[in-house]
């Protein structure tokens, strides 16, 4: 506000807030709010850094354990093959029956090595995003048959039994046949390893249709075992890479990639995988995938 009186000038300046005291108070309050905001942002950043470094440390530890575990997993079948080759070469085994048994041992260990290498390669491919899945109508019955067939001697030597229950009028699903088979195989392999009770694993494979109005619906493919189930502490990290169940014994084969790969591969096929405890306390894993349209 300015007033002029005669030739004498008098200049009056007034802040919008009223008095200078009020203006200073407002200024301080604003500065305080800004400082508080900056502190909050800094605090959030510090918490985020702590959480992210904790995660990085945990992932690093899991990766180290994975490297140690995979080297043991690779060495064991190699040791069997080397030992068998030594016995064959030095004439320890000469009779036809013995040679055939040795051929079976070498074949089975080579299969084990191949599975492990394929698992690691599949992980690398899903991580790099190079892997492309071709979705086409796939018959669930054929997928189950192939996956069970790949499990080979496990279901023949009595250490595990599998019972399949696939609905008769099940539609084909939109999936990559090879990837869906690998997913089912990983679940079966886990059921054999962790679903043991009294020295044997009793496994069930169920497939059923879920109807949805206006769409071809979905198909659920479940693997159920009657073992001790997943410990509650492991459920949260079940599908994380490199995570191994706390009930995995020192000699339980595996690399902590199986369930992680199942989740990645199912997502890539527009499907999903879920876990829930089986009614009798065992484990129930379910693959959910879209049915193919008519």
């Amino acid at each position, binding site marked *: 506000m300015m007033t002029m009186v005669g030739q004498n000038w008098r200049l009056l300046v007034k802040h919008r807030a009223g008095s200078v005291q009020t203006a200073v108070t407002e200024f301080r309050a604003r500065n305080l709010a800004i400082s508080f905001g900056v502190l909050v942002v800094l605090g959030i950043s510090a918490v985020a850094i702590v959480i992210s470094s904790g995660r990085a440390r945990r992932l690093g530890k899991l990766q180290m354990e994975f490297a140690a575990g995979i080297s043991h997993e690779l060495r064991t079948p190699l*040791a069997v093959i080397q030992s068998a080759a030594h*016995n064959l070469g030095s004439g320890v085994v000469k009779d036809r029956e013995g040679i055939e048994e040795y051929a079976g041992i070498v074949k089975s260990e080579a299969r084990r090595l191949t599975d492990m290498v394929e698992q690691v390669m599949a992980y690398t491919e899903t991580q790099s995003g190079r892997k492309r899945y071709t979705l086409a109508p796939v018959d669930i019955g054929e997928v189950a048959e192939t996956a069970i067939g790949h499990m080979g001697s496990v279901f023949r030597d009595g250490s595990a039994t599998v019972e399949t229950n696939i609905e008769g009028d099940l539609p084909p699903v939109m999936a990559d046949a090879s990837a869906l088979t690998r997913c089912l195989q990983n679940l079966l392999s886990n059921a054999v390893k962790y679903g043991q009770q009294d020295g044997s694993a009793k496994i069930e494979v169920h497939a059923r249709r879920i109807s949805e109005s206006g769409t071809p619906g979905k198909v659920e493919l479940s693997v159920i075992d009657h073992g001790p189930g997943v410990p509650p502490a492991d459920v949260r990290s079940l599908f994380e890479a490199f995570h191994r169940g706390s009930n995995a014994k020192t000699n339980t084969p595996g690399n902590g990639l199986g369930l992680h790969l199942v989740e990645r591969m199912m997502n890539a096929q527009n499907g999903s995988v879920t876990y829930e405890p089986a009614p009798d306390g065992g484990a129930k894993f379910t693959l959910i995938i879209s049915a193919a349209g008519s």
Partner: protein
Amino acid sequence: MTRRRILLVEDEPGLRRTLKDLLVSTGYNVETSQDGADAQSRAETETFDLIVLDVMLPSRNGFDVAKGLRKNGVHTPILMLTARTELNNKLLGFKIRRRRLPYKTF
């Protein structure tokens, strides 16, 4: 001459078979076990000239079996068999007074 008796403790069926064949062909009488607890029980109740013991076993690992045997007064020589070549495992093996700690590299 009585054949020397060996207890071979190995959970991997392929290795159990090939190692047993190799030892039998060399002139030993070989008994096998695939489980740590079973191996300890047999080693405490039967007489063996040597125990070939894998480290990674179901129910009880090889180090624990060896410690248990020594604690219970069984002084049968033990050869520990392992794919674990880390220094800590070697030291642990010698700490329990193994004569040798061969590795599964064959």
